């Protein structure tokens, strides 16, 4: 028989100890001591100078989780204020900074970089590559994100945080109506973060196109890599639009141009179109990676391949395309006229079709399976349940007249939290619980994990479901307080209790994360009995990932692969050698990308404060870039 069917029934995971997932292969037993965490040895220098996609992915993960906690803390204060009518936990000014930064943080500093952590860590492993196409650019992306994130986040600690909303509508954000430095931080910070996202986007597109292992055709690519691929195109196509939209605002604020000056004929709707032409694809940038993660988790724990793989790929691409044709549904109340309203209403409805197909295919994946409800699988199933609700309420405001009652009310807040919390965040948690063993070589605690899930699930619904009611009962968004007797008290109280519950759930997660990283059970290369390429190598993977580059013959090499797949998996799992011993050339560590990123952000600080600082930082960045570009990437090949 030419094909060795291994099947997903091997490797039953946590309960039975360590499995390799490859027949005839002795279980790879990592010693419980740090020998298993070789990738993460080394002092602080090895992190500052790293060009290893796995370490950069880990940096992204920790930084993004930190910002997730920051954004969560901001949300808790918001909910504390709204827990009862006419409460004054914080001043109106601080409330407005908090809701602006909650949105900005969660979107740009938490969810996107959490996805980026998975892009970094997983894409090379899933396509059988040793690193991304541009390892130093990858490091640069991370450092720009970190410094940019601090740049935009720190001002609120001094009461000068951005306060124009995450959407920053003009003319409120022009100098005339926001004379302080608050909005400056937002305008410049978003430009900085855009540089990071764009650099990473091009990097991953190149990686996926050029660095796939032999036999890894596009239609054999793991679905997470596919959804990431679509996401990168959305990033490189949509970020230039917001860059321009905000660049006009930057010019208006700093150099006295009049792009958005109403008295000079500036049109606030120009900004809104530019913003949402970015802003809507951004929604899919936030949720497609979660789609991908869930599409990895569900097959593994159902012991079945993904149901309708080609349709899942095509619907992802279709969502990406349609995502560029629906932006004006954020603007149904601005008076675009009946034709535009009708067109954007109908295109928005259309996007529900590929999204619905995805939900049904996830159900189809689980149906007839043997679904094992680990924490990761619970989060994935919870994702399907909650994202469905967000999808349905999305169709409710695709109808422009109906949207006139819903828009800018709490109904919208309920909707997009079901999409972004119930969708993106639940999917990302599924991914964290699923890939934690691969990242750190240890299992996460399942008991704590399930506690986290249930607290989070109940808390999430308690927070956001009542918002449907407060919205339809007339409560506007973005209000720092509300009066009693409006019929909103009970729903707001529920939402606030729910938010506290989410807070407790998150603390359980943080505790589990750090405890398991130190003391979790050693995982072995394939603790879940999964079928894709990343599970054919040790956990955590060695710096070179694959001792021999695999030859791929199917979508799930460990489940349905031929002899070649099995053979390379066997070698890769057992390899304990170093890169030098194997003769594998790896890029040098270098700190130059970090310096370039630091001086780039310092330039923006200089733009706000002191032109000499601006000039000095520009010079230093040029020198850093020159040093970076003139030094070799890796040792010469022999």
């Amino acid at each position: 028989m030419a094909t060795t069917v291994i099947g997903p029934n091997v490797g039953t995971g946590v309960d039975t100890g360590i499995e390799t997932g490859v027949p005839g292969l002795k279980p790879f037993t990592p010693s419980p001591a740090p020998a298993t965490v070789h990738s993460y040895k080394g002092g602080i220098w090895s992190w500052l100078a790293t060009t290893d996609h796995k370490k950069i992915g880990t940096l992204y993960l920790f930084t993004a989780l930190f910002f997730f906690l920051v954004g969560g803390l901001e949300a808790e204060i918001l909910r504390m204020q709204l827990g009862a009518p006419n409460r004054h936990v914080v001043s109106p000014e601080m409330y407005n900074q908090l809701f602006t930064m909650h949105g900005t943080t969660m979107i740009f500093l938490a969810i996107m970089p959490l996805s980026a952590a998975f892009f970094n860590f997983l894409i090379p492993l899933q396509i059988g590559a040793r690193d991304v196409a541009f390892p130093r650019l990858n490091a640069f992306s991370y450092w720009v994100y970190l410094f940019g994130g601090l740049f935009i986040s720190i001002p609120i600690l001094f009461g000068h945080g951005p306060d124009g909303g995450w959407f920053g509508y003009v003319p409120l954000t022009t100098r005339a109506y926001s004379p302080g430095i608050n909005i400056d931080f937002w305008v410049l910070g978003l430009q900085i973060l855009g540089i990071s996202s764009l650099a990473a986007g091009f990097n991953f597109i190149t990686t996926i196109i050029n660095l796939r292992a032999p036999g890894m055709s596009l239609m054999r690519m793991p679905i997470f890599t596919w959804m990431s691929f679509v996401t990168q195109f959305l990033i490189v196509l949509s970020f230039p639009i917001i860059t321009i939209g905000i660049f006009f605002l930057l010019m208006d604020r700093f150099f006295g141009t009049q792009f958005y000056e109403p008295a000079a004929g500036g049109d606030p709707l120009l900004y809104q179109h530019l913003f949402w032409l970015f802003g809507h694809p951004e929604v899919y940038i936030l949720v497609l990676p979660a789609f991908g993660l869930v599409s990895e988790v569900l097959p593994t724990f159902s012991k079945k391949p993904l149901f309708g793989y080609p349709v899942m790929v095509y619907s992802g691409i279709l969502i990406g395309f349609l995502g560029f044709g629906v932006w004006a549904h954020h603007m149904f109340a601005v008076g675009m006229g009946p034709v535009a309203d009708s067109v954007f209403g109908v295109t928005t409805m259309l996007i529900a079709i590929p999204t619905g197909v995805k939900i049904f295919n996830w159900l189809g994946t689980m149906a007839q399976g043997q679904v094992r409800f680990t924490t990761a699988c619970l989060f994935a199933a919870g994702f399907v349940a909650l994202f469905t609700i967000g999808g349905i309420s999305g169709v409710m405001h695709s109808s422009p007249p109906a949207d006139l009652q819903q828009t800018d009310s709490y109904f919208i807040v309920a909707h997009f939290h079901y999409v972004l919390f119930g969708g993106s965040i639940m999917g990302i948690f599924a991914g964290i619980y699923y890939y934690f063993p691969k990242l750190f070589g240890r299992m996460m605690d399942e008991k704590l994990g399930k506690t986290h899930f249930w607290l989070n699930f109940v808390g999430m619904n308690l927070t956001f479901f009542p918002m449907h009611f407060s919205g339809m009962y007339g409560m506007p968004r973005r209000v720092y307080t509300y009066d009693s007797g409006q019929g909103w008290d009970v729903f707001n109280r529920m939402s606030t209790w729910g938010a506290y519950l989410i807070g407790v759930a998150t603390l359980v997660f943080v505790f589990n994360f750090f405890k398991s990283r130190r003391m979790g059970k050693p995982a072995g290369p394939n603790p879940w009995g999964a079928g894709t390429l990343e599970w054919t190598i040790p956990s955590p993977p060695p710096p070179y990932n694959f001792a021999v580059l695999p030859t791929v013959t199917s979508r799930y090499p460990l489940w349905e692969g031929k002899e070649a797949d099995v053979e390379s998996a066997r070698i890769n799992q057992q390899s304990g050698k170093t890169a030098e011993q194997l003769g594998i050339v790896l890029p040098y560590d270098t700190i130059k990308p970090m310096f370039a990123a630091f001086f780039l952000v310092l330039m923006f600080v200089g733009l706000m404060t002191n032109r000499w600082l601006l000039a000095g930082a520009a010079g230093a960045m040029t020198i850093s870039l020159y040093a970076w570009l003139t030094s070799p990437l890796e040792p010469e090949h022999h």
Partner: protein
Amino acid sequence: MIGSPRLRRLIPLGTVAVLALALAACARDYPNTTFVPHSDLGRAIDFLWKRLLLFGTAVFILVEAALIFIIWRYRRRNDDIMPPQTHGNVPLEITWTLIPAVILAFIAVPTVRTIFVTQAKAPAGAMVIEVYGHQWWWEFRYPQYNVVTANEIYIPKGRTVDFVLQTKDVLHSFWIPQLAGKRDLIANHINHIWFTPDAKMATTVWNGFCTEYCGTEHAQMHFRVVTVEPAQFGSWVTHQQAPGFFNASVTPANPPGATPAIVAPTNAPIPEQAGVSAIRMAQPNVTPPPPPATPTVTQAQLASFILPRTSVPAYAIPHTPLPSEISFNDRLVGDATNGEKLFVGAGTCNACHAVAGNALAAGVIGPNLTHVGSRIAIGAGMYVNDAPHLARWIKNARIMKPGNIMPTLGKGQYDPQAKTVTSTGLSDPQIADIVAYLQALR
């Protein structure tokens, strides 16, 4: 993990939660609900909403039931069982692509029809109300009646109103949840939203909100809409056209060229009620207002229709507590005549506020105060309009409403924007005089 025992425990729990929510939704009073529309536009929206809710609920139940069934039926039973390695099912996948498409067609067609009906030009006989958004209050003008007011409007039942929306600064959005949807106020654009309030409805007050984030006090930019009988409206208009009631030198109210004020009940057909397709908008009311019964203003008419305080529902009366930082002796009794002098003198109120009939008070920066005494609330719906609130507002408006551009007028008060304590300004007795004057402007 989701074994059937746990599932069985969860089902009643979930049912109780949903029932509790539904009960909460029925038992309480929801003064700003969008579920009980009182206009043709509101009903056209509600018709679509009900359809969306029906399909949405059906899809929700279907998908979640399927998910729960699959979770229960296909949970792991035995590690040795190898499930069938299906890769997909093309007919099935085509089916669940087409069914949503058909459902969406049932939503899209009435949606597009409703868009074109509701966004047509307002009918010719409509009453025009110009709405100007300010940070953070509303200016209303009735060009057909030469009436200017702030944060409070009266509209006659059964007559189409065309709101012409503009902004004086940043973006705002105009929303009266019980009557219609929202429409934004956008610089360099003139937007419209028009509807016909039901002819048969309560004479009462509706809350209106700003729903586009507009800066510090976006949360405190409310307005009140009073729906009244047409005859009451005519009487109200006459009253509004007159100068402030306090002013001794009452001049004839109707400026030359102003449209006659009295509006008789119209003969316009009552807008569709339940049972008739809600998608059609009411026929425009083109009946011209009949000539006024009495063209000159009499004293009796000056005292005419204002919704009595006792008829104002509790939800329209603000409950915002007074900031404790401002102290004021509420036992002071003011002198309105002296208050009028202070209004244009030491108080410099006239720099920003207009009072028709007082030639010295013609400011345009703040709300028109001609009939401020008759209004329900001050500060754009933030505080109830009575002497203690008015006094503290005048004394330190920037603590009363942070971000406010109205200066801190009381002497020795901390100005949170300038971050200084005022060295000049009004004494408490002077403020009491101004309060007396403003309260007399009914």
